[in-house]
């Protein structure tokens, strides 16, 4: 699958925001510095991926997993990242679980709503039929009287 060049870069707006939030107020960042940091970040992604993939291949797995990435961080001497990454992963897993349950609940609710609706329609139908029947009866009585 052909990747466009822009797909291999990270969005400038987000990179800029991360930089700004990391630095104290009043510090500016030149365009060239920003570009270089963005490039460095891309290289980081590729290097980390390659490193993590080595661990996956060593374990004879085709799918790269979170543990592989953690091992890669250690290998790349970014041990300082391990703790915050573990915490983020926990939060992410919880969020994914919540999302799954929420969408399952939504599906359930939608189904129940649908059943309720068809029940309502049936009841309305019955009421109408009863009214018609009553109306007919009245007409017949009148005729009889006459």
């Amino acid at each position, binding site marked *: 699958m052909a990747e466009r060049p822009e797909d291999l870069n990270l969005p400038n707006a987000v990179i800029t925001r991360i930089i700004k939030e990391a*630095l104290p107020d009043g510090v500016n960042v030149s365009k*060239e510095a920003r570009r270089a*940091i963005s490039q460095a970040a891309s*290289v980081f992604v590729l290097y980390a*991926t390659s490193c993590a*993939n080595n661990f996956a291949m060593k374990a004879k797995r085709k799918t790269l*997993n979170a543990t592989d990435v*953690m091992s890669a961080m250690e290998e790349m001497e*970014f041990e300082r990242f391990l703790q915050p990454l573990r915490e*983020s992963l926990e939060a992410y897993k919880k969020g994914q679980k919540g999302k799954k349950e929420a969408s399952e609940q939504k599906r359930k609710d939608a189904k129940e709503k649908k059943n309720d609706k068809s029940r309502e329609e049936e009841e309305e139908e019955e009421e109408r039929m009863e009214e018609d029947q009553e109306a007919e009866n009245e007409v017949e009585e009148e005729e009889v009287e006459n």
Partner: protein
Amino acid sequence: MAETVAVPVAPLAPTESDPERCEDEEELRGNEAEENNQQTGPVAAAPQNRLAKLPLSRIKTMMKADPDVSLASQESVFIIAKATELFVEMIAKDALVYAHQGKRKTLQRKDLDNAIEAIDEFAFLEGTLDA
């Protein structure tokens, strides 16, 4: 009359599970999260922005560019996104030290170069950035 017609475009934002919280509240929160994030430019689905600022779809595309990579779990993509965020923070702060040395308040390209040369963890970057 409700002002927000809650039509969730993206999946709900992850929140601690609270059975008493009604559906409407959750949808509002989801909309809020989206609005906050729209200030920073195009973003992926709202939920992951609570935890990762970089778009996971883009990260995944980059990972797939490696011919040796066949599949990557969602979690691994997330961790790499998060690690990249930490990396950007780290390199920006380390480069700032050199700007201060030069009595500057503006981070410049040469500050990055200095940091890369001086700091072991950044050795992998040598020779990779455009001149």
